[in-house]
């Protein structure tokens, strides 16, 4: 991993299109400003990991699960 030291107000340019600016440093928190093309997806890593974990958990369902769920579905009012 490349590690750079930056101060508030300083930036890092990644490739031609992505610029990351340190907006503010306060205690153990850093506020970052990101300029990037709209097609570049910018996500907080922990949210991505949370969704991955939940999707993996959902993928552990066995074949009997839908039979259990159908009882609930039966009580569902129409959309």
């Amino acid at each position: 991993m490349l590690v750079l030291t930056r101060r508030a107000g300083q930036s890092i340019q990644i490739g031609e299109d992505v610029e990351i600016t340190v907006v503010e440093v306060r205690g153990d928190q850093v506020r970052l400003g990101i300029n990037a093309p709209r097609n570049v997806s910018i996500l907080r890593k922990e949210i991505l990991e949370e969704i991955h974990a939940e999707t993996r958990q959902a993928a552990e369902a066995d074949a009997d699960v839908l039979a259990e769920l159908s009882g609930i579905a039966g009580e569902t009012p129409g959309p």
Partner: protein
Amino acid sequence: MIVETSRFGRVEVDPCNVIEIPRGLIGFPPEQRFILFEHKPGEPFRWLQSLDDPALALVVVDPHIFFPDYEAEISEEEARALGIDDPGEAQILTTVTVRRSMGQITTNLLGPLVISLRNGRGAQLVLDGDRYTTRHPLPMAARREEEPSLSSVA
């Protein structure tokens, strides 16, 4: 075509109904193809079965059935990549997780699947903001537990 699945054995699927997820589900391999199975006609829960990994299958649901106000915002770029020009051309599905030990059934409203009804191309999104989480209890499941006490009050 016939596909092998670890839960349902060999299953015949119509190639027209194949769903392609070029980037894959989040944290899963890319270039995966899936098919939706109905459990019983008219039921909201369906299986999303991978055609490339026999062991990969998830229960999915149209979240609007349980959460009528649910909104999944898709970026213009993403919509274009999937070939979706109009919200009516998109099918939204969310994964369902059953934790038997906790008696809990939840759906992931933060990371919905969006599938083009026109070409079967789809993606798993990550929604902005903190309105939704990965574990929304299905309201019907909650109501069922509450019913006995409600009737005793009446």
